[in-house]
């Protein structure tokens, strides 16, 4: 029975992920980079959909077991046999990756994987947040049976009891499929999300900007020490970063796609962003911001198409957002930031200029401290004025809306975080020190995707 359930679980992950990708990207992949992009996307969406479906059956019907996997499999399997249009011609060969860069990518990945393995064997319970938030909730979900009141007690004294359930739900569901609380499941789940992130960024860059940009993206991501720390600690920041990157990359593709492909890509982007919102509360902020950035041009000049884009994106997010709403309204306690906010207090904080200075200084410090003192962000920031100067003298190109979307998103996301810090009722210094690096880690892959876009928007490979 256990083998059957495990098989069903794995089949559901594969079918849901591949089916969702097949819905959004109908034409067969024309390049190796595109195949890697789709595989990473399928893994992310498959894991997320299986987790969301199992949480939905648990929260709505207090039902555990393989029903959600079976349902996903039945829904997704026909999509895999959907007739596809002919494959597009392979892209023209563009930039090539030099052997030293290839070697560096391989070595970097090998070192990353070795450290991950070594740490996971020694500390399988994960870091502080993993055992105090994510794996704790996973254990409660797995052990409490259908008694949800025991999983979500109103007076639970743990950090962020209102965080959504993508990661704990997935781990608990995998344990349920295995029939045992295997200690290797949380590190394996963390490794899968990290691998998906490390594959998605270079593949998205290689598909849009050529293999060299892909190699640059991978190296800069590997050269961010905080990513290694968060990944081996099994924190949810890595899955969230991966979902946000997937949403941004798909939305950017959607804007450069044909009229038939555009809504499909935007629906898929909405789904990816909603899975980010189902991972951590911060994901909801990014989802709303991405919808606003999609609609932005319509604010400056009446453009119904861009309203439609934002609407399509949100439509893709609706199923998971409904689940999130049900969880927040029925089971989760009120968010601590919301619960501790009063109108008068909020107004006082918003009008206090000293808070702006503290927040500004904290963000400025991250220029050299981000990612536990890595050099990647300073290098990327140094490239921005050059890129800006070059862009001013470039002719308009069909790929420009996509690049503009990524640029706006990578500029506005830190501003949205800054606005939340301005309003937070928590002690500002402590709040900034404990969370800013994580928030910037969610933003970092999008910033790299935006910064490494081709100069003239010509997809070279």
């Amino acid at each position: 029975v256990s083998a059957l359930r495990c098989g069903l679980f794995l089949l559901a992950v594969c079918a849901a992920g591949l089916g969702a990708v097949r819905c959004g990207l109908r034409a067969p992949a024309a390049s190796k980079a595109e195949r890697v992009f789709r595989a990473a996307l399928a893994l992310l969406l498959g894991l997320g959909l299986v987790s969301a479906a199992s949480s939905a059956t648990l929260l709505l019907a207090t039902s555990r077991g393989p029903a959600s996997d079976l349902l996903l499999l039945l829904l997704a399997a026909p999509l895999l046999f959907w007739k596809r249009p002919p494959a597009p011609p392979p892209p023209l060969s563009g930039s090539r990756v030099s052997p030293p860069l290839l070697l560096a990518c391989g070595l970097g990945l090998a070192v990353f994987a070795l450290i991950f393995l070594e740490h996971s064997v020694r500390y399988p319970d994960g870091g502080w947040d993993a055992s105090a938030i994510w794996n704790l909730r996973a254990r409660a979900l797995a052990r409490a049976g259908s008694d949800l009141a025991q999983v979500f007690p109103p007076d639970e004294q743990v950090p962020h009891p209102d965080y959504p359930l993508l990661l704990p739900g997935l781990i608990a569901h995998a344990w349920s499929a295995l029939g045992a609380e295997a200690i290797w499941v949380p590190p394996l789940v963390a490794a899968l999300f990290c691998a998906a992130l490390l594959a998605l960024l270079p593949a998205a860059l290689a598909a849009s900007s050529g293999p060299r940009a892909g190699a640059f993206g991978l190296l800069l991501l590997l050269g961010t020490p905080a990513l290694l720390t968060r990944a081996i600690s099994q924190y949810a920041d890595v899955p969230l970063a991966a979902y946000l990157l997937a949403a941004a990359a798909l939305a950017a593709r959607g804007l450069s796609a044909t009229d038939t492909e555009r809504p499909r890509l935007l629906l898929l982007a909405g789904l990816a962003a909603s899975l980010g919102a189902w991972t951590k509360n911060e994901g909801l902020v990014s989802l709303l911001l991405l919808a606003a950035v999609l609609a932005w041009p319509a604010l400056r000049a009446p453009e119904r198409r861009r309203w439609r884009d934002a609407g399509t994106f949100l439509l893709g997010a609706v199923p998971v957002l409904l689940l999130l709403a049900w969880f927040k309204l029925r089971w989760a306690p009120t968010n601590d930031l919301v619960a501790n906010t009063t109108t008068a207090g909020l107004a006082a904080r918003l009008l206090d200029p000293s808070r702006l200075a503290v927040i500004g200084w904290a963000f400025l410090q991250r220029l050299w401290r981000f990612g536990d003192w890595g050099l990647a962000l300073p290098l990327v920031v140094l490239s921005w004025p050059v890129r800006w100067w070059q862009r001013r003298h470039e002719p308009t190109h069909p790929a420009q809306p996509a690049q503009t979307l990524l640029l706006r998103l990578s500029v506005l996301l830190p501003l949205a975080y800054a606005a939340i810090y301005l309003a937070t009722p928590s002690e500002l210094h402590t709040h900034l020190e404990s969370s800013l690096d994580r928030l910037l880690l969610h933003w970092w892959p999008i910033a790299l995707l935006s910064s490494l876009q081709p100069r003239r928007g010509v997809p070279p490979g």
Partner: protein
Amino acid sequence: VSRDLLASCFVLAAAIAGLLRGVSVHLYKERVYTLEIPTRRIDTRYQALLARLPPGGRFGYLTDAPPESEQAGRLRFDALYALAPRLLVSDPAARFVIADLLHPEALPRLCAARGLVVVAAFEGGTALLERR
């Protein structure tokens, strides 16, 4: 020197510096250089206690770690994690109380001061207590 070569050199330098920093901090913090490879499982400390508890419910929680210290927080979250989904509350009226002590020899004194009796005490400083 071409622009591409220059960009590649900068990216390589940033990547190598970042990766080396991440790896060195990781190896230093975990004292891998001592070649002792300790594996830490949170459950080990609470295994015997867990076997004596009912599958769910609310329990009082008692520790001798300094209040509000990182050590106290760590112990409490480790206990919550190991004993999930049981709820550990700071309720002086709770009938059953879980003791999670840094100094097990302090158990009789703590019990006497709080009107508790030992139901079962385990190696490492954990115990199940009951209100008298």
